């Protein structure tokens, strides 16, 4: 099991694309089983036994697992009984637990990922490439995934996996390659390095040590949600309650972290807060003003910043140039427009400023947003939202798929804005991020806020338990001896949200 780590834009994705035949190398060679190969397309790669599980799942929701699996490889085992038998066989051999006739839309994130892995194995892959497989999983699911991967390894398969979570990389990989700015900077044995050393190799400079943090939580409530309830209707399930009597208050300078397994109402809560869905009951108040019936645009003008969970779907126009993406969401505000007309000149100048001060790595502001790497896209979004000085920021997975350097920067910006009184709702699958950045923690389960916790004492494992619905109420840290558990947590946290400003690397 080989792990590849590196910052966004370091060339991991490009390397993977080349291995998977999606891009052709200018120079150099690839050898599979000692034999030099030229991969012209993913089909070539599949023929050579190389399969890829993408970061964004590529499954058709309205088809079954079986249909998704045979799609495009109908010639292997047909589309009927033989294929079903083969899926069962693979599923059992590697302990994937995949049901061939389940509808993909009914599956959770972890199950979908297993379907993706199965799809690749179904095509006869002997080498699996996994692009940030743990980004969307809770700790328990990560453990299950790693168990699956070890299973694969035991059967003699090769797994190449890309991750930003260095702790995981260390625990699961047999060998680690660190790449930076397009070249290999180190190949290390996981036994020889700590997360901190690994992070330093990635970033290329020493990480700043964690700063002590004082609370900036003020007294004035910025966002007050009470009794928020939302129902959805669909043909299959009839009416379902996706938000059930949700009440919370975020004060100025407070970061409220919301933990929860995806699909437990977080998306709906975000929709209700940004106004793309209107609540069936309950009220939303922004600095005391009732905004429950306000349309999205009015809320955004009123100081609600939004870092969406899916930046491709909700945060960017991928085919539009950067400066138009800077306008998106703030088209009614300066410097983007004056009343009726757009002011492209001012918007462009301001885009230059964002690119500069948020370290968006791009050759210019006329390239399309889609041609930037994920981390740089995210920095652009953060820059855009912060530029309008929001009172309340919805930050959904603000650092998902973002490298360590950019991650630290984004955390920094959120922390800086918080010092100036910004109220933040932080939703994240990265529990270290939640714990490190939040002033208050709440856990969401099946549309309800079931538990709260103090980020100063809680561990990711305890939080993970509450996320599965196994614990509720106020979560107390259980360990009787406080000195012992503090020590091992120090390490992962060093590269975590507490890690001051990551800008060092850019000043160098």
């Amino acid at each position: 099991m080989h792990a590849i780590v590196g910052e966004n834009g370091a060339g991991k994705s490009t390397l993977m694309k080349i291995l998977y035949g999606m891009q052709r190398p200018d120079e150099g060679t690839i050898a599979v089983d000692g034999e030099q190969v030229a991969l012209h397309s993913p089909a070539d790669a599949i023929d050579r036994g190389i399969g890829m599980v993408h970061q964004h799942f590529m499954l058709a929701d309205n088809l079954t697992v079986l249909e998704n699996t045979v799609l495009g490889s109908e010639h292997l085992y047909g589309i009927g009984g033989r294929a079903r038998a083969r899926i069962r066989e693979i599923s059992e051999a590697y302990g994937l637990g995949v049901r061939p006739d389940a509808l993909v839309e009914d599956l959770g994130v972890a199950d979908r990922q297993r379907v993706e892995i199965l799809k690749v194995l179904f095509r006869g892959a002997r080498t699996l490439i996994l692009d940030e497989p743990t980004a969307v999983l809770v700790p328990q699911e990560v453990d299950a995934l790693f168990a699956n991967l070890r299973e694969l390894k035991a059967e003699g398969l090769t797994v190449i996996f890309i991750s930003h979570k260095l702790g995981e990389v260390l625990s699961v990989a047999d060998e680690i390659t660190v790449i930076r700015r397009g070249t290999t900077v180190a190949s290390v044995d996981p036994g020889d390095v700590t997360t901190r050393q690994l992070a330093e190799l990635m970033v290329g400079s020493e990480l700043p040590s964690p700063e002590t943090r004082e609370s900036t939580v003020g007294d004035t409530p910025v966002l007050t949600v009470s009794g928020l309830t939302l129902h959805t209707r669909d043909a299959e399930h009839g009416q379902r309650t996706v938000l059930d009597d949700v009440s919370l208050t975020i004060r100025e300078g407070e970061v409220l972290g919301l933990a929860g397994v995806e699909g437990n109402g977080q998306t709906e809560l975000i929709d209700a807060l940004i106004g793309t869905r209107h609540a069936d009951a309950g009220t939303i108040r922004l600095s005391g003003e009732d905004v429950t019936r306000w349309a999205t645009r009015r809320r955004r003008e009123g100081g609600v910043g939004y870092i969406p969970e899916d930046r491709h779907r909700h945060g960017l126009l991928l085919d539009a140039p950067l400066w138009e993406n800077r306008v998106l969401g703030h088209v009614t505000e300066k410097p983007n427009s004056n009343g009726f007309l757009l002011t492209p000149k001012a918007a462009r100048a301001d885009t230059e400023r964002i690119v500069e001060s948020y370290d968006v790595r791009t050759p210019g502001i006329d390239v399309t947003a889609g041609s930037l790497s994920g981390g740089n896209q995210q920095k652009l979004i953060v820059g855009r939202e912060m530029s309008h000085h929001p009172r309340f920021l919805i930050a959904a997975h603000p650092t998902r798929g973002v490298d360590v350097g950019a991650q630290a920067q984004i955390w920094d910006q959120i922390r800086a804005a918080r010092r100036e009184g910004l109220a933040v709702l932080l939703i994240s699958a990265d529990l270290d991020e939640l714990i490190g950045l939040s002033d208050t923690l709440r856990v969401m389960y099946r549309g309800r806020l079931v538990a709260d916790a103090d980020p100063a004492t809680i561990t990711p494992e305890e939080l993970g338990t509450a996320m599965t619905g196994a614990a509720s109420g106020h979560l107390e840290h259980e360990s009787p001896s406080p000195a012992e558990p503090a020590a091992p947590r120090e390490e992962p946290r060093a590269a975590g949200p507490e890690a001051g400003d990551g800008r060092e690397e850019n000043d160098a």
Partner: protein
Amino acid sequence: MTDGGMPVGTARKRPSRTIDTERLVLAVGGPALALAVAIALTSAVLLVSGRSPVEPYVLMVEYAANADIQVLIVNQATTYYIAALAVAVGFRMNLFNIGVDGQYRLAAMIAAVAGAAVTLPPVLHVLFIMLVAVLVGAFWAGIAGLLKTSRGVSEVVSTIMLNAIATSIIAFLVLPDQFGEQRGNNLTTGEIPRSGWFPNLDAGPGGEIYGFIVVAALLGLVYWVVLNRTRFGFDLRATGASPSAAAASGVDAKRMVFTSMVISGGVAGLAGMPVLLGDSHTYSLVFPAGIGFTGITIALLGRNHPLGIALGALLIAFLDKASATLDYNGYEKEIATIMQGLIVIAVVVSYEAVRRYGLRRQQQRVGEELAAQSGAHHQNLSKGASA
């Protein structure tokens, strides 16, 4: 702009400019490729049927050298241009308004009836007729918009059906029992008085060019300004590019669908005006039909850009009018129709090919630029370290 003097600043500017020129080349490359393919395929058709693969083009170009044919082409293009703009408004928003055809015919018919029924001073009379046409077109398209926003009916289906309904309504209204007048074998809606005519431009021996061409050109300008320079246009384009991102950015998607459908229909309503106000002055059974469908071709060909649409309209009008000569020289004028069809196919394929190529190129370039930047950055670092 602010840090133009710094070396970093200039280094950042240069690549964006090269990408711009490349974008221009790509923009022109798509249509050029499509035309070349369409011509080649038409020639292939000619060869297969044992004809000269070149002569028809020569004949058409020679024929189009005549001044009167040029006037015909320009006049035809004016009508096409407005219809194509109407389609393009929808396209920019990812709406397929196939109903431009029904919208402009119904609008022209009712505007003709209204124009013949009132007495107004010259300028006002023309404006009145145009207003009626815009309102009728907008209303007819608005039905499709309303169906889409309230019931989720695809605008493709509803506008096609509305075309059929418009045809029947027109056939009914033009009967002598309603608003029609029998003129020989023809049914008309009665002539609009002179005060309701749009003055034409004298083009010497070639005849008269529709004065409405000025309105068409203004429409093109307004189209560009509204889409590219106003908040509304930005919202519209954003919704077309990504409905989900637009909704998150605060665009009311339903209202946007309805509004752009109404605008598209309003513009479509004007498509019949060059003929009505500049030539026929009445709606009759021989009023040009099918312009809306040609408009779709032209909007595609012109990539929804007002200048591109103008060139596309001229090209299609050229094929329409200059092909008349083929019949006199032993060729079928349907050759031009075949070519129009092939252009549509070639356009769709080549634009997509060029778009993908462009995207890949750009991603590659961005990668290269960044690598070069950080490479230089790296060198500086190591120099600094060794010094």
